[in-house]
């Protein structure tokens, strides 16, 4: 059994009366990239500070390579390094900033110079070595902050929303650099973000956090395809299809009657939570909706086929978002070519096909 490089159990942290972090288990394997994904206010940054030994928890313990670790442990803390949303560069040159952690660890000047030059080359920052940090743009500053942490070759690298302050174009470039560097290095990383696409691009494993608790851990596809709660489904990009009543089960699938009377066949994380007669939410992803002409009757593997009429279309980042009404109200995401070939325009009647595994049913709160 592999010993986690970092493991926490029973972590609790309270600010005043509010429980900000309430995490039973959290572990990072050597070399693994774990993303903590959740909305603002979920407690992710606090969890990060606790794991980085920058803040003392009210309860619980943290193990580094199997040994207990505390905020006072300078030795353990120096095996970790962090990058925050705001780069917090120190007044001085880029090279001086990147050398900071090395100087704090007593690394000799010659070794510092060599390692700083190496770290700058990882992020194409060599031309900036002697530049004052005041002259840097936001993207450049964040790259310097990353170099400053990577040069320390930490056993665990921590990143707190590193792209949150960056422009969209710079964010993409930074994420590519980060992906490349995280894969190239041997150490583990914990990345905190509210951006689901950051999480999916970078993580080996995702921990979804809500209101201080970790509500699901798994690979990116686990979290997306087998979301454990509606919150997770919505947070990872699913949309709510409708609210209906469970009419029965079909093996692992559940049958839900829509308000209009149509029957929906959906998958569910927990069939026992949805007995017949119970209210249910059904979530789907617009990209999983397949449209077909109504004058053609095909048999597909999709268990759901709905009669729909196109209400409106709108461009959506190179694709087309199609709003449909009929048996159920839903949205589809098509390529422009497909919309042209099918003649998708307001008023057109189509069939909408969705596989049962692409629909997720969750218990809904009882109607008042």
């Amino acid at each position, binding site marked *: 059994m592999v010993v986690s490089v970092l493991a926490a159990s029973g972590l609790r942290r309270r600010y005043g009366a509010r429980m900000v972090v309430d995490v039973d288990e959290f572990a990072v394997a050597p070399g693994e990239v774990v993303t903590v994904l959740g909305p603002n206010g979920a407690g992710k940054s606090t969890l990060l500070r606790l794991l980085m030994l920058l803040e003392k928890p009210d309860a619980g313990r943290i193990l580094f390579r199997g040994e207990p670790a505390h905020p006072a442990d300078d030795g353990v803390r120096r095996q970790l390094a*962090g990058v925050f949303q705001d780069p*917090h560069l*120190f007044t001085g040159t880029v090279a001086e900033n990147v050398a900071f952690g090395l100087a*704090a660890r007593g690394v000799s000047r010659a070794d510092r110079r060599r390692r700083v030059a190496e770290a700058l080359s990882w992020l194409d920052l060599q031309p900036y070595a002697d530049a004052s940090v005041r002259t840097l743009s*936001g*993207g450049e500053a964040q790259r310097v902050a990353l170099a400053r942490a990577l040069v320390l070759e930490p056993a665990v690298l*921590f990143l707190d929303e590193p792209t949150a302050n960056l422009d969209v174009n710079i964010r993409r470039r930074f994420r590519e650099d980060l992906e490349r560097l995280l894969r190239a290095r041997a150490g583990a990383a914990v990345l905190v973000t509210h951006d689901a696409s950051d999480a999916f691009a970078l993580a080996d494993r995702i921990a979804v956090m809500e209101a201080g608790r970790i509500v699901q851990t798994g690979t990116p596809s686990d979290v997306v395809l087998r979301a454990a709660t509606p919150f997770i489904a919505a947070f990872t990009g699913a949309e709510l299809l409708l609210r209906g009543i469970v009419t029965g089960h079909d093996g692992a699938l559940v049958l839900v009657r829509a308000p209009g009377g149509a029957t929906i066949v959906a998958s569910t994380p927990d069939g026992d939570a949805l007995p017949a007669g119970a209210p249910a939410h059904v979530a789907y992803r617009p990209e999983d909706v397949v449209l077909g002409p109504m004058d053609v009757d095909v048999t597909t593997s999709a268990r759901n086929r709905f009669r729909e009429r196109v209400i409106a279309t709108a461009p959506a980042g190179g694709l087309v978002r199609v709003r449909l009404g009929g048996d159920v109200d839903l949205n589809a995401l098509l390529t422009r070519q497909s919309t042209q070939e099918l003649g998708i325009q307001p008023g057109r009647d189509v069939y909408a096909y969705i596989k049962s595994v692409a629909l997720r049913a969750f218990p809904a709160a009882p109607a008042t």
Partner: protein
Amino acid sequence: MDVFADALRQAIALLVHRDPYVLQALWLSLRVSSLAVIIAMLTGLPVGVGVGIGRFRGRQILVALIHTGFALPPVVVGLFVYMLLSRQGPFPGLRILFTPGAMVVAQSLLAAPYVAGVSLAAVQAVPADVRLQARALGASRLRALWMHVREARVGIVAAIIAGFGAVISEVGAAMMVGGNISGQTRVLTTAIVLETRRGNFALAAAMGLILLFMVLVINLLLARVQSEDGWRRRASERPWS
């Protein structure tokens, strides 16, 4: 209007010919006020930094006290120091009343609140996350604190300049505890009072011009230093690209 023109003309002549009486007063002013500011730094900087960074009960009261110190009347401070150093006071054997030493004591008390107050503001303007970031890179608590103070160094320089500006042109305390003794405790400000009363307007004006010039230079320096400091604020308001 002749009185102004005459005084000005003669004052410039005194300055150009480096009148020894004027230069002596200038030199003493610089020595006393500089020493006073150095002492004010030793007391005011730790207080300013400690109150600026620390979070403890009673902090707000301390901040208010420091700000009240900005408005201390020099003559009242002079009175206090006079009483402190007099033969009936707690240090009868000290005997520094009517010497530059007493003036340094009084002016350091006047300058300390300025040094503390401006350095407090400077340190508060640096985001506390700078310390967090330093620690996240392995710095000890002390080193992290140093990085925080280092980021405020421009503001701290402003604090020292402000302290100097507060005392170089005060007359109340210098007069009270120095006594304006020729060649011993006569600084620019106390000399101006004396020479004006005697009707030596040219002499008084010469020293007044020097004082004005010094105050101008101090304020230009302060303005320069504070605009220098603004880069961080401006940078954080800039849209990141």
